[in-house]
C-alpha cells in the first residue's frame, strides 16, 4: 500500500515534468502561427481550445505554459480576460519560474477594474516580503501595472516596509512603486512622505534617483507643497552627474520658480553652466527650456537676462543647424517658446528658419512656418511671403500646400494687416493663390479679398480691376476639380466689382464677361451675388453715360436677353434673385421706351456705403431711453381671442413676410414653417454625389466638345510658375541694382513679383533719399564702407521709410462704446469645463500642516514663512 502511494507520487511527479515536454510549447505556438498565415484566426482558436484543456489539468507547469502562451496571444489582440483566475493560480505558485510567468501575464492583462484582483491581496503581500529579492521584485513590477485603489490601500504599509530593506535593489523599486500607490490612494502620501524624503539622501545613487523621480513627479503637479525641498534639490543639481536625475530636477525647478521668483535668480547661473558644459543633448534641451520658462516668470527682476537668452538662442541655432532631424525639430520648438517673449532675439535668425522651409520633413516645415508668422515685420514680410509662394509651387502634398496658403494669409492679415505696406502686392498675392490647384481654402481667400477691399479704400481701384480679370476668367474655376472650393473667390470678385464698379476700367466689358459666364454652374450663393451685382454695374453704366438712352436701352436689352437663362437656376434663392433682377430690368426698359426713366430711382437701390462692423457691435448697442424691452409692443391678445394664437411676436413678423392675414395662424404647420423660415439660411455645398454627377456630365460634354483643350490650362500654369521661379532665382540681387528693369518686359513674371520688385526699389530709393538727407550729401564713395552702420541706423527707425496705407481697423461700434477686452466673453463656460480630472489634485497635500488634533495651529502666514526662508539662504554647502 505504502509502496504504491510512493510509486504513484513518483509517476505523478514524472508526469508533471514530462507534461511540459509533451505540450505544445510557446515556440511551437509561435512557429505554428507563422506557418498558418492564411488561416491564422482558425489556428489560434484551436490553440486557445487546447490551452483551455491544459488549464483544466492539475499540473502547474502545464498551466504556466498555457498562461505564457495566452500572454503571447493577448499581445496579438485576443481576449484572455477569461483566464484571470488561472493567471492568479500560476502567480501563487511557489516556483519562481511560474511566478514570473504569472506576474507577467497579470501585468499585461489585468487593469484597475479586474474583479479577481481582490483575491490577490494576501498573495501579493506574501510575495512582497519574500526572502528572495527577485520574487519580491517580480511582485512589485507586476503591481506597478495593475495596482488599484484597494490594493494601494491594503499594501501601502508593506511597500513602506520594503523601503527600509537592506538591498538597494528592493528599496529602489519600493520607492518607485510608492508613486503608483499615491496615485491610487492619496491618503498614503502624508504618512509616507518623511520616509520618502529620507531616501533623497540614500547612500545608493539608484535609490536616490528613484526618490528624486517620485518627488519630482509629485511636485510638478503641486509645486507649492514642495518648495521647502528646494535646497536639497539645489544641492543635488549641482552635485549629481546622472542625466536622468538632473533632467528631473531641472524640470522640477521650472515648476517651482513661478511660486518663488528668488529661486529663479539663483538658478540661472548653474543652468547656464550646464548649458555650456554638457555634451548630452537631452540635458541641454531641458536646461534651455527651463531657462526660458524661468526668464518668463521673473522677466522683470533680472537686469542682464539678455545674455542668457542669447546663449539659449545660440545653442538652439546649433541644434537647428544639426543634420539630425530630431534636434532640428526640437530646436524649432524651443525657439517658438522664446519667440513669445523675446521676438527680437529670434528674428535675428530669420535666415535659418527660412532654410528649414526646404527641409524634407513636413513636421519640421510646419514648425518653421509657425515660427515665421511670429517673426514678420514690415521689412521682411514681402520677402517671407515671396519665399513661401515659391515654396508652395515646389512643394508636394495638398495638405502641406493648404497649410502654407492659410499661413500666408495669416501672416499677412495679422493684427489688421499691420505689416503690409503695399496692398497692391497683397491683392496680387491673393489672386495668385487662387491658382493653387485643389485648395480647400477658397473661402478664406474670398474673405480676405472682401476684407481688404472694404477696409483699404485706396486699394479699391486696383482690387476692382484684378477682380475683373478673375471674372473674365471665371470659366477656369468651373473646370476645377470637385474637391476644391476655389470658386468661392468669385463670390468676392463679383461683389467687389459690383460694389466698387466706378473704379472698373472697362465696366461694360466686365458686365459682358459676367453675362457670358455659365453662372448657373456655380454654387447658389455665388450665383446670387452675381445677379445682384449685374444690376449694380448696369446702374453705374447708365449713370455715368449721362442718361444716354440709346446706350441704356441697348445695355438693358442685352442683359435681359442673357439673364433669361439664369431663371432656370436650381438654387431657390439664386433663382429668386435672378428673377427679381430680370423684372427690374424689364421695368427699366419699359420706362426708357416711354422716356420716363430716371436713373436715380435705380441707383437708390444701392445707395450708401458699407462699413466694417465690429464683432461685438450688436451686443454693445445701448438700449435707447424710453424703450422697455419687456413691454408689449401691441396689446396682448385678450382672453376672448382664438386660443390657438400663442406666439405673438412671431405673428407680426410672419404677417410682414408673407403678406397674409390672421386666418392662417391657427394651423400648426404654418407656424412650423415660419419658424423654419426665420432660421438663418445655411448655404449648403453640393453633396459629393451631386458633384460627382455634375463632374460626370461635365466630362461628357468636354469629351464631346471638339474645341475643348484638355489640361491646357494646367500645363500653361506650371510653365508660367517655373519660369517665374527661374527668373526670380536668377535675380536674387535685384533690389540692390535699382533702375535696371524696373518694370520687366517679360510678361511671364507674375504680378506679385513685379510689385515685389517695384516696392523693393521704392524702399531702396526712400532709404537712399533718407540717407542723403541725413548725410547732408556726403560723397558717394563713402557709401560702401559705411554701409553696415547705415543699415543699422536705418533699422532703428525703419518704419518711416514705408508708406503708410490707411486701413480701417476694427469696425464700427455704437456711439460712445469702446472696444473693450474680454469682459463679456461668452466662452467662460467652456474654459471651466476643459480641465479634466487630474489624479494629482488629490495629492495636493501640505506637509507643514499640523494634524487636526494638535492644540495649536499656527496662522497661515507663519505656515508659509519657513519654506521661504529656506530658499533664501544659499543652499550650496
Amino acid at each position, binding site marked *: 500500500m505504502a509502496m504504491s502511494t510512493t510509486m504513484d507520487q513518483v509517476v505523478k511527479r514524472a508526469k508533471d515534468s514530462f507534461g511540459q515536454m509533451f505540450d505544445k510549447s510557446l515556440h511551437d505556438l509561435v512557429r505554428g502561427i507563422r506557418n498558418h498565415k492564411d488561416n491564422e484566426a482558425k489556428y489560434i482558436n484551436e490553440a486557445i481550445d487546447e490551452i483551455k484543456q491544459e488549464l483544466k489539468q492539475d499540473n502547474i507547469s502545464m498551466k504556466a505554459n498555457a498562461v505564457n502562451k495566452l500572454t503571447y496571444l493577448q499581445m496579438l489582440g485576443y481576449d484572455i480576460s477569461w483566464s484571470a483566475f488561472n493567471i492568479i493560480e500560476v502567480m501563487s505558485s511557489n516556483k519562481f519560474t511560474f511566478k514570473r510567468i504569472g506576474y507577467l501575464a497579470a501585468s499585461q492583462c489585468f*487593469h484597475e477594474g479586474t474583479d479577481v484582483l481582490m483575491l490577490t491581496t494576501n498573495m501579493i503581500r506574501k510575495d512582497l516580503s519574500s526572502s528572495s529579492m527577485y520574487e519580491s521584485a517580480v511582485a512589485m513590477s507586476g503591481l506597478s501595472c495593475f495596482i488599484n485603489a484597494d490594493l494601494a490601500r491594503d499594501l501601502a504599509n508593506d511597500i513602506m516596509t520594503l523601503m527600509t530593506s537592506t538591498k538597494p535593489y528592493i528599496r529602489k523599486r519600493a520607492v*518607485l512603486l510608492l508613486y*503608483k500607490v499615491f496615485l491610487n490612494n492619496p491618503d498614503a502620501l502624508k504618512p509616507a512622505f518623511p520616509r520618502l524624503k529620507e531616501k533623497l539622501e540614500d547612500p545608493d545613487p539608484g535609490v536616490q534617483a528613484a526618490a528624486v523621480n517620485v518627488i519630482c513627479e509629485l511636485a510638478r503637479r503641486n509645486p507649492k507643497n514642495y518648495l521647502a525641498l528646494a535646497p536639497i534639490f539645489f544641492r543635488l543639481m549641482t552635485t549629481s552627474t546622472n542625466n536622468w536625475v538632473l533632467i528631473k530636477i531641472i524640470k522640477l525647478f521650472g515648476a517651482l520658480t513661478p511660486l518663488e521668483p528668488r529661486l529663479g535668480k539663483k538658478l540661472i547661473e548653474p543652468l547656464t553652466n550646464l548649458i555650456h558644459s554638457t555634451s548630452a543633448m*537631452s540635458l541641454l*534641451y531641458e536646461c534651455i527650456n527651463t531657462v526660458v520658462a524661468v526668464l518668463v516668470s521673473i522677466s522683470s527682476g533680472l537686469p542682464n537676462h539678455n545674455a542668457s537668452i542669447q546663449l539659449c538662442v545660440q545653442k538652439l541655432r546649433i541644434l537647428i543647424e544639426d543634420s539630425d532631424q530630431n534636434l532640428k525639430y526640437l530646436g524649432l520648438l524651443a525657439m517658438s517658446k522664446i519667440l513669445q517673449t523675446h521676438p527680437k532675439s529670434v528674428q535675428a535668425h530669420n535666415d535659418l528658419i527660412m532654410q528649414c522651409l526646404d527641409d524634407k520633413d513636413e513636421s519640421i516645415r510646419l514648425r518653421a512656418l509657425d515660427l515665421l508668422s511670429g517673426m514678420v515685420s514690415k521689412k521682411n514680410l514681402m520677402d517671407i511671403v515671396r519665399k513661401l509662394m515659391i515654396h508652395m509651387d515646389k512643394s508636394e502634398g495638398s495638405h502641406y500646400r493648404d497649410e502654407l496658403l492659410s499661413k500666408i494669409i495669416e501672416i499677412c492679415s495679422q493684427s489688421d494687416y499691420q505689416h503690409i505696406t503695399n496692398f497692391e502686392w497683397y491683392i496680387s498675392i491673393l489672386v495668385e493663390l487662387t491658382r493653387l490647384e485643389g485648395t480647400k481654402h477658397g473661402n478664406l481667400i474670398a474673405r480676405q479679398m472682401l476684407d481688404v477691399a472694404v477696409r483699404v479704400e485706396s486699394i479699391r481701384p486696383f482690387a476692382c480691376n484684378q477682380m475683373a480679370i478673375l471674372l473674365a476668367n471665371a470659366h477656369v474655376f468651373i473646370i476645377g476639380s470637385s474637391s476644391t472650393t476655389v470658386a468661392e473667390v468669385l463670390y468676392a470678385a463679383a461683389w467687389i466689382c459690383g460694389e466698387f464698379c466706378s473704379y472698373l476700367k472697362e465696366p461694360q466689358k466686365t458686365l459682358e464677361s459676367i453675362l457670358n459666364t455659365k453662372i448657373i454652374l456655380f454654387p447658389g450663393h455665388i450665383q446670387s451675388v452675381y445677379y445682384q451685382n449685374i444690376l449694380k454695374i448696369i446702374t453705374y453704366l447708365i449713370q455715368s453715360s449721362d442718361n444716354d438712352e440709346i446706350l441704356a436701352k441697348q445695355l438693358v436689352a442685352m442683359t435681359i436677353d442673357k439673364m433669361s437663362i439664369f431663371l432656370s437656376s436650381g438654387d431657390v434663392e439664386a433663382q429668386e434673385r435672378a428673377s427679381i433682377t430680370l423684372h427690374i430690368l424689364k421695368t427699366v426698359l419699359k420706362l426708357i421706351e416711354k422716356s420716363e426713366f430716371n436713373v436715380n430711382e435705380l441707383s437708390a437701390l444701392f445707395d450708401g456705403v458699407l462699413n466694417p462692423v465690429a464683432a461685438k457691435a450688436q451686443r454693445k448697442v445701448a438700449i435707447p431711453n424710453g424703450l422697455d424691452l419687456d413691454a408689449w409692443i401691441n396689446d396682448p391678445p385678450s382672453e376672448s381671442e382664438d386660443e390657438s394664437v400663442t406666439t405673438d411676436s412671431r405673428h407680426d413678423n410672419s404677417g410682414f413676410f408673407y403678406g397674409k392675414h390672421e386666418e392662417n395662424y391657427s394651423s400648426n404647420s404654418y407656424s412650423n414653417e415660419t419658424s423654419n423660415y426665420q432660421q438663418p439660411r445655411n448655404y449648403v455645398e453640393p453633396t459629393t454625389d451631386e458633384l460627382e454627377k455634375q463632374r460626370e456630365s461635365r466630362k461628357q460634354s468636354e469629351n464631346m466638345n471638339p474645341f475643348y483643350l484638355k489640361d491646357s490650362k494646367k500645363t500653361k500654369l506650371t510653365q508660367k510658375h517655373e519660369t517665374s521661379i527661374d527668373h526670380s532665382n536668377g535675380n536674387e540681387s535685384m533690389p540692390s541694382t535699382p533702375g535696371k528693369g524696373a518694370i520687366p518686359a517679360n510678361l511671364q513674371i507674375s504680378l506679385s513679383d513685379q510689385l515685389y520688385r517695384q516696392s523693393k526699389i521704392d524702399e531702396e530709393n526712400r532709404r537712399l533719399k533718407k540717407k542723403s538727407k541725413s548725410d547732408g550729401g556726403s560723397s558717394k564713395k563713402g557709401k560702401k564702407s559705411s554701409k553696415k552702420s547705415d543699415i543699422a541706423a536705418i533699422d532703428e527707425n525703419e518704419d518711416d521709410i514705408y508708406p503708410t496705407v490707411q486701413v480701417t481697423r476694427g469696425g464700427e461700434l455704437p456711439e460712445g462704446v469702446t472696444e473693450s477686452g474680454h469682459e463679456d466673453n461668452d466662452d467662460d463656460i467652456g474654459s471651466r469645463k476643459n480641465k479634466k480630472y487630474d489624479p494629482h489634485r488629490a495629492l495636493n497635500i501640505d506637509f507643514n500642516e499640523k494634524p487636526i488634533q494638535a492644540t495649536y495651529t499656527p496662522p497661515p502666514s507663519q505656515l508659509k514663512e519657513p519654506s521661504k526662508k529656506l530658499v533664501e539662504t544659499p543652499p550650496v554647502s
Partner: protein
Amino acid sequence: MSSAQHKKVIESHVVAVCAHNIDEIMSYYDPNCEVSFDGQVVMRSKDDIKSKTEKWLLDPNYKVEIVDFLPVEGDDRIQFILLFSRQGKLRLQKWYTSQTDKSKKKITREIIAAVLSRKPKMSSFLEWKDLKVVYKRYASLYFCCAIEQDDNELLTLETIHRYVELLDKYFGSVCELDIIFNFEKAYFIFDEFILGGEVQETSKKSVLKAVNDQDVIQEEELEEKRSVLEDLGLA
C-alpha cells in the same frame, strides 16, 4: 447633441438626483469619473460615493451644492511602449496607464498607422492627441513611446536606445525573431529597466545581471525536475 453637451445634461441630472435616491446616483457611476465639490476631489471610488452620499441623504441639514463628474486623465511619465514590425505587427506592448483592452487596441492601431506613414527622413517625434509619440526604427522593428507634453523627447529616445542595447547584449546582436520567440524575456528585461514608466536602473550591467540571476534561478528549478526524471530512470 454633442457628447459634451450630453455629458453636461447628465451632470446636471446627477445634481438633481443627488437629493433623492441613492440607487439612481449609483446608476450614473462611471469608474473613470470623480466627484468633486467646489473643485476639491471628494470621492472617487464606488464605495466611497455610495457610503458618503447615503449619509448625506439621511442628514436633512446637508445641502449638496456642486457635483462634477469629470473624466480621469492618465498620470504622466512614459504612458505606454509599443514594439512593432515594419508590417505593423505588434511585438511587445507595455502600458503604464489603466486602459481597457478595447481602447488599447484602438490606440495601438492608430499609432502604428501614424508611425508607419512617416517618411524615413522625418524626425522621431509626432504629436498624437494630447500625447507626444517618440519612435525610432532599429532594423525591421519600430520602438515607440508615448509621453506627456512637457516630457523630454531626447531623454525618451535615449531610453529607447538603452533598451535596444540591453536586448542586444542579452541576445547577442538581437533580431526580430529573438523577440518573437522569447517575448517573455524581452518583457523581463524591460521590467528590470523600467518600473511604472520610470527608468529604475540606468546601468546596463546591473540590469543584465538581475535578468541573468533570475534566469539562473529558473534553470536551477528545471534542473531539479530533470533529476526527478533521472530518479525515475534509476527506479
